[in-house]
């Protein structure tokens, strides 16, 4: 990591972020936990709570196992309308390196398409990431999703 130029760093971070959204949008959710280190934190929290410093999260997973459990539950347990996501990612900003992790902020828009074929804005928000270098490449140590769209249309089952 230290050996990378800022431009190379930006390139690798962008690659990770792009592959992450493509994995979800292509519905390869079984691979989704692999973007994280084992001892990770993935938290989906409303802007309303984040701004008040309150902990209530829509999803709170502090291990890769909990991410995998979310996927198993949505494949085999939960009942919901079939849908697709399309993430639009923008404003990727590599803030710097802190305590051995690359700090990255970015914006997202998630469009949701239901079986009838209509597409709606489902969620708008921001990713606050800490990314680390591992033997397998860059991975998320921490990914906090702060969603502006805090009145969730019906339910949130597919991760953002």
């Amino acid at each position, binding site marked *: 990591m230290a050996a990378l130029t800022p431009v190379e760093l930006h390139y690798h971070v962008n690659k990770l972020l792009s592959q992450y959204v493509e994995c979800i949008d292509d519905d390869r959710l079984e691979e989704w936990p692999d973007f994280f280190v084992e001892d990770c934190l993935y938290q989906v929290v409303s802007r309303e709570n984040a701004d008040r410093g309150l*902990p*209530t*999260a*829509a999803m*709170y997973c502090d*291990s890769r196992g909990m991410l995998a459990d979310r996927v198993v539950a949505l494949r085999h347990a*939960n009942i919901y309308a079939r849908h697709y996501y399309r993430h639009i990612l923008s404003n990727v900003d590599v803030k710097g390196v802190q305590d051995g992790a690359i700090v990255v902020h970015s914006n997202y828009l998630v469009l949701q398409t239901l079986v009838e074929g209509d597409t709606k804005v489902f969620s708008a928000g921001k990713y606050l990431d800490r990314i680390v270098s591992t033997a397998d490449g860059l991975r998320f140590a921490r990914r906090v999703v702060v969603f502006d769209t805090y009145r969730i249309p019906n*339910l949130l*089952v597919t991760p953002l």
Partner: protein
Amino acid sequence: MNAIRDPALGHLAWPAAGGSRVPFGVFTDPAVYELEQQRLFRGESWSFVALEAEIPNSGDYKTTFVGDSPVVISRAEDGSLHAYVNRCAHRGAAICRELRGNVQNHLCVYHQWAYDLKGNLIGVPFRRGLNGQGGMPADFDMKQHGLQKLRVQALAGLVFATFSESVEPLEDYLGPMPRQAIERIMSRPIKVLGDQRQFVAGNWKLYAENTRDPYHASLLHLFHCTFGLYRSSQKGVSVMDAKHRHSMLTAMRGTDDGKLEDYQDTRTYNADFVLSDPSLLAGRQEFDDGVTLVILAVFPNLVVQQISNTLAVRQIIPRGVDKFELVWTQFGYADDDADMDLIRNKQGNLIGPAGLVSMEDGEAVEIVHRSIIRDQDKSSYIAMGGEQAKDAQHLVTEGSIIGFWEYYREIMGWAA
């Protein structure tokens, strides 16, 4: 055919006496929705509006709704609670435009009429005119132009408001069963952990049914059932207050040994499903009575819940005949230690719009609402447990739903 007392409802008939057949029109008819706002949400009922812990200090306020009427809940300098319609007495602008905040007084942005924390008018710009010109009429009396006030009352940290001058005091409105259930959960000071907001495309009463329905809970929510958080074969009760408007269902985890074969033919139980990180369900026993699940439905707009170690109030806000908002306010106890904080954070995965055991309820509402729109005179069939509004010491019943409908018919003006 039953006599129908009210001509406004005359076009919609109930196919039978009681609450076990419900014509779908009650969920889809705009005229029914309008009458509910008058007779029910602005009638003889108390609506839940806040936790006291959300507005602990002088000047704290919260904006919310009673039915679909916007209201402000405020705490005054002397610690008293107040509720008023969020609508300026001048020309009707909203007084408070944030979800919550702290102010010394409320100032309408439009022409800056000022109100104190109790909703009294205390200032009108240019009241006596400028340079001898304009100004309010000589007989203008500030006391006559305060905000429209509601009665407000708190019980065990839960704040309720009503438009009615005549409804009984809150303790009596709730009755012993709901009061004890609330006091059990609110037994010591709480801390608010945050809100979740869910917008459901369906009539609010489909959710009122859902929260009085122990039958669905282990059949719709596979996650629940598989991990034994709730099964109909557990020890539990489904009980109502004397008027059948409020109801509570409880269950005790770990009391259903050997009963799992009952689920072998259903979609619901999946023995192959194991958690790779079981810490999600690790928790503590917080209540001596062994009850691990409580869903208390208080008529018309509140659910108080304990699901394992998650505690929450859910406020139902109708937003038109085919939409409602559900606001979950999650809380813990003020003296929770760091481990307990983590337990509540992790179990938070179970509830709310992304909840592993609760997300399906919004879905159930929507799939009903979409399917009934063209058949207002057809009706549902509610009979599990004997087609009667009866308490049960088990969970294989729809008795509380029938009780809800009987009370609803009466308050709305359909003959029983």
